[in-house]
């Protein structure tokens, strides 16, 4: 049998996908729901998130404060109605996770504990030591096992959306173990496929973060929004790019340059308190500033020759020695494990070398606050989507919250939508799978090699992205990157695989992922070229100022014949008119 059918089909088995699946199974039990994932759900990249998930919980905190921190953190590009949805629903999502068994770290009296995080005025980041994503994902996965109405297609790689009669009616997917092309029909599809950090050469992201879902939507005519906004996390390990959580700074860690100076004091992020001051670390100040500003500071320090030189590039030092072994082992034990294992440094006695590293995509598939895209029947949630709650820069610990809130919302929307449409025709499903198989046989799987290799094209793509669409951009280099990407796409069309076998062909999967990455890269580069201002994580040396007159808008990248077409749409402003982002004072 080559075709299957469900009411709600979820692509991606990470935090957003599993949350959506549970939502359908629990609240819409009459609906047939399935999760398709190219990896077993426990391998989804949610697993590597470390620091925590933000939600208002203390008496002295407020939803408005969380909203304001998020909106100012986004450099006013976040849609404020979406942010209000995020902050309102955050506490109940965290409590639901707790009720499902998530081992949140606790206060002595048994209440959930919260920690400070970058750009947040008050402590509101819920955490499970520093393996929050791991515990969140496993809690969701294990809870999902209770619902035997959730069907799973583990290690099935989705190659395309089935679109007919103006709506999405399912997907074509390769069952990786057998190599067979299948169709899965659905009345509604939710993309929860994550971001695409692997388009860059140095990233915290795992191998699977290749923007597959973004490309699927893009090719179906759905625009990708705000793709130029790529977050560089300030503290990754040199060489591997492995993430050292912001929580290390939340607990009081400091960043120093090769002069031993807490250099962030020179970047309009306030003045440092002494590390022994009980008020350290001060919120929204210095090391607890927003990620875009911290990463930009690193580049300036490097240009000025104040970073350390190492075999894996320049770095600065993250010093957590003053926290003491007990705090480190209790609150951020994985930071210690990772530092010891991968750079041979015990942070109890030595500072950790860190540098900026690509971490997250604020941009993604354009959706509204219910998770709907412009294509009827197609929804999206999580990092692959752009609602937008994160705007031009995301605050740490908002993403784990986002995947839960919008995963659940997209599920409700999709289930309701599915109730009002007819199921796909069997013939459509059969024809789609056959056509897709034929397409692969005429391209990647054809016997005559074109001389190109997956690795060759992929390496070139990564180089040009880092060169032209890094932390600081300018027109010349952006144009060059756009040209290189266009050339790489032509080379990709000539790619024929060495491995044409059927059983678990990972060269084929890597090639399909590369195709997705090239689409994502194209959207990023062209969107960045078109935005002639600087805002948040998009910094143009040739247009260094923020321009709210022209650019208080989201960019929308639509796939074109040869290059994407960039359009714009207004940012939704409700109660917080654009202002200055001020850090360094409480």
């Amino acid at each position, binding site marked *: 049998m080559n075709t299957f059918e469900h009411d709600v089909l979820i692509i991606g088995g990470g935090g957003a996908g599993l949350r959506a699946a549970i939502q359908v199974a629990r609240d819409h039990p009459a609906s047939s729901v399935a999760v398709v994932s190219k990896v077993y759900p*426990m391998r989804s990249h949610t697993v590597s998130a470390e620091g925590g998930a933000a939600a208002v919980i203390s008496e002295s905190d407020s939803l408005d404060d969380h909203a304001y921190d998020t909106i100012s953190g986004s450099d006013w590009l976040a849609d404020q109605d979406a942010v209000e949805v995020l902050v309102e629903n955050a506490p109940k999502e965290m409590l639901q996770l707790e009720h499902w068994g998530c081992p949140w770290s606790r206060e002595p009296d048994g209440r959930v504990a919260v920690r400070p995080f970058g750009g947040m005025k008050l402590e509101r980041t819920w955490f499970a030591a520093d393996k929050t994503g791991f515990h969140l994902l496993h809690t969701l996965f294990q809870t999902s096992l209770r619902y035997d109405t959730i069907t799973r297609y583990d290690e099935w790689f989705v190659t395309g959306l089935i679109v007919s009669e103006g709506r999405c009616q399912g997907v074509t997917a390769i069952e990786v173990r057998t190599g067979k092309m299948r169709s899965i029909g659905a009345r509604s599809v939710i993309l929860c496929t994550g971001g695409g950090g692997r388009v860059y050469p140095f990233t915290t992201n795992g191998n699977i973060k290749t923007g597959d879902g973004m490309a699927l939507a893009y090719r179906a005519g759905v625009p990708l929004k705000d793709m130029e906004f790529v977050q560089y996390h300030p503290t990754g390990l040199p060489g591997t790019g492995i993430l050292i959580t912001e929580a290390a700074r939340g607990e009081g860690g400091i960043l120093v340059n090769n002069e031993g100076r807490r250099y962030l004091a020179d970047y309009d992020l306030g003045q440092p308190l002494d590390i022994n001051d009980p008020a350290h670390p001060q919120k929204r100040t210095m090391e607890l500033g927003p990620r875009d500003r911290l990463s930009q500071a690193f580049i300036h320090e490097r240009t000025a020759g104040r970073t350390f030189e190492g075999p894996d590039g320049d770095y600065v030092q993250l010093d957590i020695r003053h926290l003491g072994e007990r705090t480190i082992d209790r609150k951020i034990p994985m930071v210690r494990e990772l530092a010891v294992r991968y750079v041979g440094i015990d942070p109890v006695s030595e500072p950790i070398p860190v540098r900026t590293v690509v971490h997250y995509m604020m941009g993604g598939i354009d959706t509204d606050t219910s998770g709907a895209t412009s294509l009827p029947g197609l929804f999206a949630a999580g990092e692959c989507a752009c609602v937008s709650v994160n705007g031009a820069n995301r605050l740490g610990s908002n993403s784990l919250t986002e995947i839960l809130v919008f995963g659940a919302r997209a599920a409700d929307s999709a289930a309701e939508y599915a109730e009002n449409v007819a199921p796909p025709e069997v013939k459509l499903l059969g024809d789609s799978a056959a056509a897709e198989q034929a397409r692969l046989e005429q391209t990647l799987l054809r016997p005559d090699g074109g001389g190109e290799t997956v690795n060759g094209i992929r390496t070139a793509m990564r180089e040009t992205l880092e060169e032209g669409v890094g932390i600081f951009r300018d027109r010349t280099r952006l144009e060059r990157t756009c040209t290189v990407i266009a050339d790489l796409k032509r080379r990709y069309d000539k790619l024929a695989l060495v491995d044409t076998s059927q059983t678990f062909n990972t060269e084929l999967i890597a090639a399909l992922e590369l195709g997705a990455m090239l689409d994502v890269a194209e959207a990023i580069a062209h969107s960045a070229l078109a935005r002639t201002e600087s805002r948040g994580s998009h910094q143009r040396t040739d247009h260094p100022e923020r321009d709210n007159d022209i650019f208080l808008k989201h960019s929308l990248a639509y796939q074109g014949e040869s290059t994407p077409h960039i359009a714009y749409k207004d940012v939704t402003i409700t109660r917080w008119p654009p202002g200055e982002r001020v850090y360094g004072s409480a």
Partner: protein
Amino acid sequence: MPDQVLEVFRYLPDSEAESRFDKYEVTYRDNWVVLDALNHIKEHLDPTLSFRWSCRMGVCGSCGMMVNGEPALTCETFVRDYDTETIKIEPLTHFPVVRDLVINMDDFMEKLPTVSPWLIRDQDDDPGEGEYRQTPAQVAHYKRFSMCINCMLCYSACPVYGLDATFIGPAALALAERYNLDSRDEGHADRADVVTAHEGIWECTYVGACTEVCPKDVDPAGAIQMLKLSYALDWAKGFVMPKGAES
């Protein structure tokens, strides 16, 4: 940069009936893990080599393989720590091989739900009423057993599982204990049937190899022995005070 030969297990069922070993010579950097060497082979020497990996930081559990005969997480195992002339890489033992270094883990995926690895309560409180209180000490009681990344190294090390694949196995049982010990859970009795079945804890003869190879220090052997004690006590209580035994 030094050289290293990797002898890698290959199984290409579409074209070959038998498995074989391929030798690859790799020049490696001092900070390379075995996974880096495998990726180098795939990217530069042989794109047909298939293996699973993702996070490369020891949390996703994808990259378990046999390295020089021992189950290892290849993203946490450094090439420099092996001083044999050749490093032998094979798929995890005790699992059927799909292709090359990729094993079939359906068995584990089917067993996992049977131990009811979720919070069981007689009455689910409304989350709106706030969190279930749980002190740091109470969290500590089950924390260790919650650290399992499902990498399957323990199943590879367990000779009981190797001899009898019906054994539920270390990771699944450790997860049962994680929930049994969670102060918020009330499902100890609900898990009894599966956990104390013949294929459950009583098939474990405490070889202890699972705990030895576990890369996350979960100590599944300890979890199983604790389960034996707790369910044995339940059984004894059932004799002494049949009505009030189940708690």
